[in-house]
């Protein structure tokens, strides 16, 4: 089975990111990490590839930087990567992102496409569904469990009140939640091998996608401002009596 896994390189969430004051785009540092939520998709892809003697191709639209994030996913065991980093893409919205990723996936001809449910930095949460539409595939979304049998994918799809069991035949796109699998850590051997693995870097023109970036996305950030702050209230160090403060507050709020 040929499996495409969509992964994002993002600025390390531990270091607060900056917005360019002029065009409001996120300022991308050179060192970017693999979006933590994408490790689950990589793991699901690797397990299916192992079971079917398949191949895992990573697809990413992100500033390439030092390729640190992509190498993290290659070190887990993916076979190769396609990364689209084109100056023209700055300010692109969800639909342009989906068009670019779908074009790259089409050029590879994947049976199965895997993505996260939402990215840590963008969290539009609609890019995978857009890709499914552009690739003419069913989308099995919000999978917390996934099985493959003879060309049929069956998932447990998380819903707000429980879960549904949903299935479709390949080719299909799946989005996976953090409950689906336990991602593996790269081994030393994996890290060494990752350095030799192929990383393609096509341009938008190579993929045949036009009108990209902020203008092509037909949306424009007009203002960025601080939200009204919620002030912190009383802070009490517990010396055995602090629960009484809670009782007092609950009385005031007429909960008890």
């Amino acid at each position: 089975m040929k499996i495409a896994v969509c992964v994002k390189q993002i600025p390390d969430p531990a270091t607060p990111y900056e917005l360019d004051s002029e065009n409001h785009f996120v300022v991308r540092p050179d060192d970017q990490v693999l979006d933590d939520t994408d490790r689950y998709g990589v793991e699901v892809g690797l397990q299916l590839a192992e079971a079917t003697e398949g191949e895992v191709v990573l697809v990413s639209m992100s500033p390439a930087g030092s390729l640190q994030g992509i190498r993290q996913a290659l070190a887990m065991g993916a076979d190769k990567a396609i990364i689209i980093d084109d100056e023209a893409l700055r300010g692109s919205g969800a639909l342009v992102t989906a068009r670019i990723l779908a074009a790259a996936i089409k050029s590879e001809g994947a049976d199965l496409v895997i993505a996260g449910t939402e990215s840590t930095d963008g969290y539009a949460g609609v890019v995978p569904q857009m890709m499914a539409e552009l690739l003419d595939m069913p989308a099995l979304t919000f999978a917390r469990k996934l099985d493959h049998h003879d060309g049929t994918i069956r998932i447990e799809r998380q819903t707000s009140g429980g879960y549904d069991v949903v299935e479709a035949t390949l080719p299909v796109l799946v989005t996976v939640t953090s409950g689906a699998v336990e991602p593996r850590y790269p081994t030393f051997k994996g890290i060494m091998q990752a350095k030799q693995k192929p990383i393609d870097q096509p341009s938008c023109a190579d993929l045949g996608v036009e009108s990209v970036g902020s203008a092509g996305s037909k949306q424009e950030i007009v203002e960025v401002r601080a939200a009204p702050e919620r002030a912190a209230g009383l802070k009490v160090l517990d010396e055995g009596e602090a629960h009484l403060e809670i009782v007092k507050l609950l009385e005031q709020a007429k909960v008890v």
Partner: protein
Amino acid sequence: MQIWVFAEETDGAPTSLALEMLTKARSLGDDIVAFLVGPGSAEALGALGAHGASTVYHLDPGDALPSAGAAAAMAELAGSENPDLILFGLQPTDRDVAGRLAARMGLPVLSNAVDIVIDAGSTSVINEILGGATLVETTFSGSKPHFVVVRPKSFTAEPGDGGDPIVVPVMAPGIGHAGSATVIESHAEESEGPKLEEAEVIVSGGRGMGSQEQFGAVEELAGLLSAAIGATRAVVDAGWVPYSFQVGQTGKTVKPSVYFALGISGAMQHLVGMKDSGTIIAVNKDEEAPIFGVADLGIVGDVHKVVPRLIEALRSRN
């Protein structure tokens, strides 16, 4: 101004978010239409009408996963009816349909909206980033319809004076393989007591509760206060409670009068789901924990001491 609101029917009723969006739509436009996916019970149709929909397009997906079929049906209708704006909720099926529809029509979506502003014919959307600390305003510059995905609890659902809507049955056009996903089984994981989205009091626990057994103290306190139980993703991923308990960016957005955060650090992704609660009470042994930044009452202490004493004190009152 013609505004459509996507509504999914679960357990015989539209999602509460659909009713919140209809209420907002009433304040923005004069021609409000709902697109209902589900069996189409009289109760669901009545609720849509009461919240402002004068027309309901109704698609019964049977056992098909509705996303692809609904998107194709909406694209056909939108092509002839020319709505100005289509609203979806930030929840699974809504997101599936929104993404597919936007890609099908080649138009942008703005997601994660906490507000929508229409000014001199231009539509813009307010987004929260960085855990709600920063607001971003984005406008659409292209052709209509504009698609917006709205965060839960951004607006309050209130019925208006609308009566029963005109119901127009809709069929999903044949779309082949993309529409072939089927739902085999459905399972509910509801807990006892009030629903998270509707509860007046929520007691949430985090990894600081220690273990699945010790999380029992959260359940006990919730029981005493007739509260709903919430949890962080760390707790859900550890398997202590099901996903339907998760509060935050990838879980539920809640706005109770009182929210307890017990052994919760207050990560950005948790805060976006609960920071608009009335009164926030936090217990954490780390006085630097970010949760204290939003807490009305912050107790620096051990949950294994403070929570049992609180339970004891509440018990002795009854």
